[in-house]
């Protein structure tokens, strides 16, 4: 029969072993939140961080520069999707056109970013990847019923605070 002290020790050891198993004995999935973050302050879900978005026409031979927006705001919005989330969720918007409503949702897993919105003229879907903490690149597609357009996109962190409505 174990003494109380021995029971405590055994319990303590069990907790430690359990802790070790849960930490090292199981293949831990890549849990969110996933740094580097699009919005450095993930504890504030109201204020986000500003990014520049440069777009290029992917379907043209020379990928001509189409333009840039320095007004893309990412606001951290928690984990996606509980109870066993694998991704971070962000709101994103173009702060220069809040009334236009160009805004949507972004999720992030590792350094991969997935974005969509359907509040503008077209549906938008993007997939890009952070190369450094402050810069990444990928693809952006916009479409409607009988139309689509493929863009290359480069995102660069500006770092100023911003808010989406």
């Amino acid at each position, binding site marked *: 029969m174990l003494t109380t002290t021995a029971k405590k020790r055994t319990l303590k050891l069990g907790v430690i072993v359990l802790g070790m198993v849960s930490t090292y004995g199981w293949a831990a999935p890549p849990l969110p939140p996933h740094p580097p973050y699009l919005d450095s302050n993930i504890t504030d879900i109201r204020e986000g961080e500003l990014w520049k978005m440069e777009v290029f026409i992917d379907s043209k031979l020379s990928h001509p520069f189409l333009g840039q927006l320095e007004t893309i705001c990412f606001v951290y919005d928690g984990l996606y999707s509980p109870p066993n989330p694998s991704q971070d969720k962000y709101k994103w918007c173009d702060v220069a056109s809040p009334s236009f409503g160009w805004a949507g949702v972004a999720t992030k897993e590792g*350094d991969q970013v997935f974005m969509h919105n359907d509040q503008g003229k077209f549906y938008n879907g993007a997939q890009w990847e952070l190369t450094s903490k402050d810069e990444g690149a990928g693809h952006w597609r916009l479409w409607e019923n009988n139309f689509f357009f493929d863009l290359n996109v480069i995102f660069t962190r500006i770092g100023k605070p911003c808010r989406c409505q």
Partner: protein
Amino acid sequence: MCDKKRPDVHQVKIPIAFGIVLALIGQSLPTNGLAAGCEGMITKTYLGGKIDEYLLPTDPADTTGYSLSYPLTDFDSTVIDRHMVHRFSNLAMAGYSIADARFEFKAKPLATTGPHSSGNDTIRLRFDFTSAVYSAYFGSGNSGNDLSAVFGAGQWGTNNSTLTPMVAAGGMVFNNANLTNFGSVASALLSGLNTHGQIYFYVQDDTAVDYAQLTLDYCPLKKPPVLTDGGNHWMLTSHQDASPAHVELNRQDLCFKYVTSSGTHQVYRWYSTVSPSWRGWARVEGDQVFMHGDYALANSKTPQHTALQWEVASEIGNQKQPSTKGYGHCVDWENNTTYGNTNMFANVRLERTGKTCPEAVEPPPANKTYVCTPKREQIKIDIDIDPAPVEKEISSISSIK
């Protein structure tokens, strides 16, 4: 290599009984700029009518879209006062451009006397109805670009004159080589064929046409060499992919030399001037770049290896605007007897500088450092990193605020 041999350029069909030695005519064949052919060339022949010596019934011509108030006729028709029109259509081929064109037809004069004459008849090639890309007269009945030098003065007749040995001979074959001044319109012809994808062949109205044939060489559309057009010097910045902060690791330069194309790939050799033993091969498909290479490390007998996979994201530069950016991944490893040792998985950012690289140093000296990674100490940190680095970073996030 699937280098298709270019077929014989002339392909002139001349009846033996009427063999004319075209070389004696002294008209050089227009090269149309790509006489040497191209890799992956495809040749197609489009035939209007049949090669049947004007055998009746007539062979139908395609007059779709042609606007003419005069009565039209088909191949082989020997009725006078009828205009022969045929459209060569659907000439465009996706992914290819027309690089060379060879045109050929057989015709004979019809009118011998009276108000009608073959001697002032015109042959034209045209893309639209405002102008002809090529125009010539068969005889000397009209002044201008006439073909009488081809078959001899008077052979096609003049207005209201009596004709001609050409009638009895069944006419003759005309082609690139003997059509007077055809070479001067070669580039306009090629350009128009690529633009319009069709062309009208037109012969006036007292001349019979047995057939008309257009043979086109198609070359695959080629992108300019993505990695060297606008400067072959690039800077590579690597970032530790496993680091929550994606910390910068190293900067190296890369130089590309275009070698050839292989199917859908552009093939390059690449090397670095900063790490001169680092070199290998690259292939570009679309805007994706796939690279592999090796390097030697000073004080190490073990060969080091590199593989990069990245994609051009920005506008592809040129001599005026060389800047071009690409993003992707790099992995460095070294051989061992089992699975190999990973030096680093890195994210990479590449940007063209616009500079021109010096030639690679031969033989390449060993590098002083790793390539996607800065130095051995940091590699050890990476290799020995805790298996759950994300959790560690999460626990320290509050300190970032």
